[in-house]
């Protein structure tokens, strides 16, 4: 079956080459049947890559270790649930996932636009197939997932234990969906410039694709942050890791684009800016993909082994050069149709919002690539850590949250000072009031956190005020009950109110970030059984140790051969709060030098965090048990001497002896204890953002759309034929 997989890759490459030629021939020669054939090449690519993906999935699920990638990243002891996800844990498999997702999303988009923007779509098809051909070529020539070895090894190396968590099943597909969806607006942006058609129809189409990219990328980023917080043993959700940053940058420029696109749609302005943003977003998405495969930066996300840096650098170079060339040579058709009417307008606020978002992206770009640039210029390694990022991103984030409140309250084109004063009075009072209340109840005076609370309160009241006024206006027109009026208001104005819900989510998210990062209490005590430690207002007592042996008994269901942990009793003011069970899993390694028993636990240990999560705070715990005591080491050494490699079951018996010794004579263990306020609101904020995004992107029911169009058209025709036409003609 590996041969079928490889044949699929070669066929896919041929389809890409054909499709590029057919699309370009069709659009240049005015032969729509060839453009259509080119579009079908994208469908064919999706079909062929689906077959290839299924072949690889079956190999993983069947433990077919003749496939090198299966042998390198899976094993018989890896739970089936994780074997299915192990497909994308390797360089080869992740390339296939990337190409497959790109082909599927491209097929969907091209199907939806099959009767529209024919010239633009033909160029976009060629560009999308170019990307498809690039990724398939990488697999064919550099990292083929279907390379086999016979005879097959008896057992595989197993999935990286860090990846054996449920969120990791969905995080890469969501993130890759975001990245691949970013390529589609890039392709349509290039297509529009090539076809010289940057118009209303292009805006309508690209807005939806960009929104989908933004949504999926955002969900992928949140899942990654959630995984980091819940599964990794450092207690944080964002470490300014290079690959985290690489996913955030296109999301920031994508957010800027979604806002400034509205200005282009309404006022015909910022065309050069928007073209540059959409092309930059696609380029940043490819750069993010490049980072994990180039080996140039250290990261938990990086794929080891073979580097694909050079092909990616060439691709990125072509993307940048092509983008700059097209924007410069098409600047005549990108001239603004209008000027800014007033500084007190939504256009101005969106412009400011764009500057902040792009500024954030620039700061993160510099901090992420600085090590590389510095090493290239000076020959010395340099690194930039979280304090550097926080210094510049926090003030920008404050301005961003403030603008997310101002934008919804200001009208397009122009707003009067009197209206602005009236509309901002309550939010300003709310912002100032929030700070005073927090100081009054004893919240410490961390200026950054208090400023964020004030800005978030301001933004929340601004947006909620919009919902209130809109509902009131709707009730005045339609005489509905408040709930019905609110639902109808949102349904009939999905873009606007979906966007407002996103703004609510952002404010809530930043409240969680500010509180959890500024007011966190953390300690790392070493405790013996029975001992307690105080963290914040909570007391944590080490009640007793825990131990499990064999992958089948692993309570975390990650297939660890040995898991040592603790029962912790958490109290506050003498009252029981929670019982927590943190543990550390030890996994098999493929190092024979560690011995028959040592190799069963010689792999990278992984912390299994235990936490009590609540709306007001999280109590987060992790344990690093001491497995290197003389007594435990002696058990391992005896096992290594007496048990052969051919008897893994006897090795597990030795581990059972070790576990029993640990339980009977538990050594002091190192703990990491954290109390973080309002962490839950980060995830709640993220859910609100996702929900608002879905509402904003959801198409209006066709009946509603026809009715709205007919109504507006009837009013237009009446105005044309009646006295009102005189007033319009004079306007």
């Amino acid at each position, binding site marked *: *079956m590996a*041969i*079928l997989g490889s*044949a*699929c890759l070669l*066929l896919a490459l041929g*389809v890409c080459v054909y*499709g590029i030629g057919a699309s370009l021939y069709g659009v240049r020669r005015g032969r*729509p*049947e*060839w453009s*259509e*054939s080119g579009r*079908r090449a994208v469908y*064919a690519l999706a*079909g*062929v890559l689906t077959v290839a993906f299924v072949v690889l999935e079956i190999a993983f699920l069947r433990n077919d270790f003749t496939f090198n990638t299966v042998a390198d990243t899976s094993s018989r002891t890896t739970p089936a649930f994780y074997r299915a996800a192990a497909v994308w844990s390797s360089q080869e498999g992740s390339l296939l996932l990337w190409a497959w997702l790109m082909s599927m999303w491209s097929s969907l988009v091209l199907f939806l636009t099959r009767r529209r*923007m*024919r*010239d633009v779509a033909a160029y976009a098809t060629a560009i999308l197939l170019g990307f498809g051909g690039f990724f398939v070529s990488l697999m064919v020539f550099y990292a083929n997932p279907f390379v086999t070895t016979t005879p097959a090894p008896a057992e595989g190396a197993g999935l990286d234990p860090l990846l054996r968590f449920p969120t990791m099943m969905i995080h890469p597909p969501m993130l890759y969906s975001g990245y691949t969806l970013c390529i589609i607006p890039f392709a349509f942006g290039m297509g529009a410039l090539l076809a010289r*058609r940057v*118009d*209303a*129809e292009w*805006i*309508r189409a690209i807005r939806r694709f960009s929104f989908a990219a933004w949504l999926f990328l955002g969900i992928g980023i949140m899942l990654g942050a959630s995984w980091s917080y819940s599964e990794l043993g450092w207690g944080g959700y964002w470490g300014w890791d290079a690959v985290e940053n690489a996913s955030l940058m296109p999301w920031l420029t994508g957010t800027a684009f979604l806002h400034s696109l509205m200005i282009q*749609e*309404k006022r015909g302005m910022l065309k050069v800016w928007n073209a540059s943003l959409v092309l930059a977003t696609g380029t940043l998405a490819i750069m993010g993909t490049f980072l994990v495969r180039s080996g140039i930066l250290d990261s938990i996300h990086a794929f080891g082994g073979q580097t694909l840096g050079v092909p990616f650098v060439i691709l990125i170079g072509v993307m940048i050069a092509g983008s700059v060339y097209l924007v410069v040579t098409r600047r005549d058709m990108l001239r603004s149709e209008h000027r800014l009417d007033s500084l007190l307008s939504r256009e101005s606020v969106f412009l400011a919002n764009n500057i902040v978002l792009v500024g954030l992206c620039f700061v993160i770009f510099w901090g992420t690539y600085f090590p590389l640039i510095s090493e290239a210029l000076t020959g010395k390694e340099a690194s930039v850590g979280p304090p550097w990022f926080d210094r510049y991103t926090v003030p920008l984030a404050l301005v961003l949250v403030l603008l997310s409140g101002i934008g919804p*309250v*200001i*009208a*397009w084109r122009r*707003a*009067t000072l*009197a*209206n602005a004063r009236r*509309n901002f009075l309550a939010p300003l009072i709310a912002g100032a009031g929030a700070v005073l209340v927090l100081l009054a109840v004893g919240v410490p005076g961390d200026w950054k956190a208090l400023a964020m609370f004030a800005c978030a309160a301001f933004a929340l009241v601004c947006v909620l005020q*919009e919902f209130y*006024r*809109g509902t009131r*206006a709707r009730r005045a*027109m339609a005489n509905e009950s408040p709930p019905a009026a609110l639902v109808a208001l949102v349904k009939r*104005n999905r*873009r*606007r109110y979906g966007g407002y819900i996103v703004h609510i989510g952002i404010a809530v998210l930043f409240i969680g970030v500010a509180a959890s990062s500024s007011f966190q209490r953390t300690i790392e005590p070493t405790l013996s059984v029975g001992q307690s430690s105080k963290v914040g207002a909570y007391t944590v007592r080490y009640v007793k140790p825990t131990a499990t042996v064999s992958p089948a008994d692993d309570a975390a269901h990650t297939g660890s051969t040995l898991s040592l942990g603790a029962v912790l009793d958490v109290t506050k003011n003498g009252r029981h709060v929670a019982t927590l069970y943190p543990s550390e899993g030890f996994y098999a390694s493929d190092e024979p030098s560690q011995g028959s028993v040592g190799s069963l636990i010689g792999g990278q240990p992984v912390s299994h965090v235990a936490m009590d999560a609540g709306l007001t705070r999280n109590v987060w715990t992790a344990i690093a048990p001491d497995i290197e005591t003389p007594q435990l080491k002696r058990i391992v050494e005896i096992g290594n001497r007496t048990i052969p490699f051919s008897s893994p079951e006897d090795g597990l018996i030795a581990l059972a002896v070790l576990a029993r010794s640990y339980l009977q004579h538990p050594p002091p263990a190192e703990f990491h204890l954290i109390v973080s306020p309002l962490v839950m609101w980060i995830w709640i904020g993220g859910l609100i953002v996702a929900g608002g995004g879905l509402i904003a992107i959801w198409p209006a029911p066709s009946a509603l759309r*026809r009715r*709205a*169009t*007919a109504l*507006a*058209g009837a009013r*237009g*025709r009446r*105005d*044309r034929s009646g006295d009102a036409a005189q*007033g*319009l*003609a*004079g*306007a």
Partner: protein
Amino acid sequence: MNLLVAVLTLLLLAAVMLVLSAPLRAARRRPDPRSAELDELRAAREAKYREIRDAELDYRTGKLSAEDYAAVDSALRAEALDILNRLSALEDEGGATNVSQ
């Protein structure tokens, strides 16, 4: 197994060629030269109607004064009329009958 793989590969190749060649085997269509401009005008029309609705909502939620709303609404309706006239002229030219698709 090798025979099965060979058969599957050939079937896949045949399916791909069938899909790619279908438009080339169908009757050749002459592209409508007006279709791009029609699509554009229809999209512009939808966008302008949305702007008119947004302006009304801005007025009803207190973001625009009555005078500002009157001025903005007039301007938008004039722009909408222009689009409708151009769309109508193009459709009449081509003999199209359905304005509100």
